[in-house]
């Protein structure tokens, strides 16, 4: 099982799309930090959790597009042809699919680590800021629901009609630009820019990082929807056509 996982991971990490998107994401991350984030968000410090949330929200669409590219590998014509061989082995199809999802998760994680690593280096280099503990919550609030939701959506869409995946990639880019209520704002781009302005200032002159219940509920709903879609995609209908 480990062997299959490692081969899948190797196939993902050595793919030219992944390498290309990795480089683009790293460059975009640096530009976002030195452009939008360096002045801080909603009158908070550039290294506040609010600013950091915006930074992750802005880079998340690229992470999602990379993830959706991984998902296209599962449903491509070439993959279907390989499946004509792999599906006749005794290895459980659901377990096989889960292993491949795990490899995609590691690919997504590595890209996320690069995005986070660049930001930590930027903060340390520009602001000599290294107290990264308070940035953990925005990391979890953005990266985890985004991964689960789009993996589930991508897998379900890929099973129905693989070209839809490219449409979703386009929607992801649009999704990041439109103003949405906190419950629906998956990337939180609008939320991190506007919500801190409504909060009272703390002793350090900045609003404390606390998100409203509607924002939490939204994230939980996205997680649940992603999980359900993933389950539906894993449950394979059998073979009469």
């Amino acid at each position, binding site marked *: 099982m480990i062997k299959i996982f490692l081969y899948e991971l190797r196939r993902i990490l*050595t793919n030219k799309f992944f390498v290309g998107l990795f480089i683009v994401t790293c460059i975009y991350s640096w530009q976002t930090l030195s452009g939008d984030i360096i002045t801080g968000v909603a009158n908070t410090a550039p290294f506040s959790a609010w600013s950091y949330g915006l930074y992750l929200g802005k880079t998340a669409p690229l992470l999602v597009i990379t993830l959706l590219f991984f998902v296209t590998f599962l449903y491509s014509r070439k993959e279907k042809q390989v499946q004509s061989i792999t599906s*006749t082995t005794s290895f459980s199809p659901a377990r096989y699919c889960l292993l491949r999802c795990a490899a995609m998760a590691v690919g997504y994680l590595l890209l996320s680590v690069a995005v986070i690593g660049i930001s930590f280096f930027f903060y340390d280099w520009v602001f000599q800021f290294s107290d990264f503990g308070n940035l953990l919550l925005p990391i979890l609030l953005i990266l985890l629901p985004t991964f689960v939701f789009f993996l589930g959506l991508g897998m379900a869409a890929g099973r129905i009609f693989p070209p839809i995946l490219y449409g979703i990639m386009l929607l992801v880019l649009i999704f990041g630009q439109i103003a949405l209520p906190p419950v629906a704002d998956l990337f939180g781009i609008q939320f991190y820019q506007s919500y801190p302005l409504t909060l009272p200032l703390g002793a350090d002159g900045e609003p404390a990082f606390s998100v409203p219940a509607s924002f939490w509920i939204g994230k939980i709903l996205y997680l649940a929807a992603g999980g359900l879609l993933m389950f539906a995609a894993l449950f394979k209908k059998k073979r009469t056509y």
Partner: protein
Amino acid sequence: MNISIQNVEMTYSNGKQALQGISAPLQSPSLIGLVGPNGAGKSTLMKLLVAGLLPTKGEILLGDSPLISKEKELKENLGYLPQSFGLYDELTVYQFLDYMAALKGIPQSRAAIEKAMAETNLSQYKRTRIRTLSGGQRQRVGIAQAILGNPKLLILDEPTVGLDPEERINFRNLFSKAAQDKIVLLSTHIIEDVQSICNRIIILHCGIILFDGSPQELILAAQGHVGMIDQMPAEKEEGYHITARLNTLKGVCCRIVAEELPPIAQAVDPTLEDAYMYLIAKEEKK
């Protein structure tokens, strides 16, 4: 291993009936050649046998139980080469076979992979990326993954397509050797492949079994229906099927199959190909 195909019918959702109530027992050891024109239902039958499709009617038994309830057992003992397949181009030959060995749960995979590569003459391409292989070499990788781990049931759909004549002979010998202790089901258009190695032939035509028996029995059925004649004008070809035009010292001669040979024809011993042509022509005439 014992597989029983019982009155199996297969109709696709577009209404195309691929198989019409076919029955056949498959027991090891045997090397069975599945022959028939395009669209006869060969690939559909193979997909049913590897549990890639469910029959619309009838059933396939593995031992005494329905195949579907023993799918895991079937797949643990199965080596399958589909007619059209893909490989992971970014992996090397060894890595792909290692990947397949992991999926098949083969213990001591290294030895099994080395053996499969040696048998398919791929050892020298062990570290070659699949994307750089020729069509014939890719076909050999397909065969290597099928024979990996010495499965008890080997189902090969057009395995010799794209192979050069020498490789075809090598593979015929390999399949023949493999069939000594297992079921090898081989679908092909190349009658020569079947003639030289199969101990049983199943001829499928329009989803029904036209013939199920030994190559000798098939040849015997065509005895007296194959002859040689001098080439005749096209309008006189009705009722005959010309299987070959041969350049001889006397000029061009034709080898024909017919239900009733014309008086000018000189009867000759049928080959397996003649017998096959005779059977198909007879069926099409109906």
